[in-house]
């Protein structure tokens, strides 16, 4: 996972915030997923920011942890989303 990459949400993916969490529905497969509070925050930042580097910058301001851990967690989540085709890399 390259932190410089920009991601977008494919048209077949529906996302809804419920409470402080997020539920993602992949219309193509009928499969759904839940993101906890932190995952939901990362997802929201991905939609708002230009790159994963900026997502990590924002997370550094909000969470008391190391940059290394944030980058690892952001990359792990984004790779999981990519693997399931819930996000795609913007060319």
């Amino acid at each position, binding site marked *: 996972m390259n932190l410089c990459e920009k991601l977008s949400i494919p048209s*077949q993916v*529906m996302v*809804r915030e*419920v*409470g402080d*969490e*997020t*539920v993602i*529905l992949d*219309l*193509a*497969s*009928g*499969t*759904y*997923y*839940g*993101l*906890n509070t*932190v*995952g939901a925050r*990362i997802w929201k930042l991905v939609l708002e920011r230009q790159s994963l580097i900026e997502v990590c910058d924002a997370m550094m301001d909000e969470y008391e*942890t190391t940059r290394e*851990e944030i980058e690892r*967690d952001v990359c*792990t*989540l984004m790779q*999981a*989303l990519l693997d*399931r085709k819930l996000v795609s890399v913007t060319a």
Partner: protein
Amino acid sequence: MLSFVPVLNWSLRPAASVVNTFTKMTLSSEPFHQWCLPDGTVWVSFFRSVAGYALTFPNIAHFHISKDGSSVTCDNAFDVATSTIEHLYLNQVVPLALGLQGKLIFHASAVETLAGAIAFMGVSGRGKSTLAASFAKSGNRFLTDDGLLLEKTINGYNVLPSHPSIRLWNDSREALVHKTATLAPPLQFTPKARILSDFALQFCDESRPLRRVYFLGDGSSPEISIKRMKASEALMALLSHSFLLDIEAHDVLAWHFDELTRLVELPIFFHLDYPRNYAELPQLRETILAHAANRKVDLNESL
């Protein structure tokens, strides 16, 4: 730190009601979906056709549902008893047809209480019918044994009544139903008995406002436990208990997802678990009734 929780694939739930006409159908394509029993046996296969959908129950019957879910026909190709066909229609086909009509319908039972309707959702074998029968026997009339149909109102949602019968395994039947209860004719595919409502097992034939939805646990809890569910948990649980015929119909799926997102804004969804013991059903009923009425409940819960 991060939790990414994949949830099981959307599961098709066969649903239910009465045959209108009988016509001959030809099925030629591969099924786009199948619903299997726990032992892997195919219970129903789903096909698309020019006019809508075809459902085939192996060695039992074929049903055809129009695209908009407004009409159902049956081909009794295997010459099974009419009672079996009617049962499949009511309990397997109708809910799927209602789903095509844009109705919110779930795999759940429901009973009437003074506080409103309370529903019990859960996978097969969790005790939905047993709870419904237990409540009905003690004076809380049942609204449905399966196929919970919700109708939006100004203040929330109403539960609509379905068929006035409850299906029970023999142990529940012996524990809960009087010996002279009226039984529907036996079904060819299951030893479950279908008990028709009567004076001792009363049916509520009017809609009631939805008060609570309890998702039934697996019975591992050593005592009665009621815990509020997060909205996201409730949303995913509702998705998995929905009657949806065609998960590849994106517009229907998207509409359903949005409707459920609105539904879970209500603070009415709870996880319920309890030891499976018939002798403790009275205490369980009282606890649930108290909880639904917001009376003090003596258990470890989070209201």
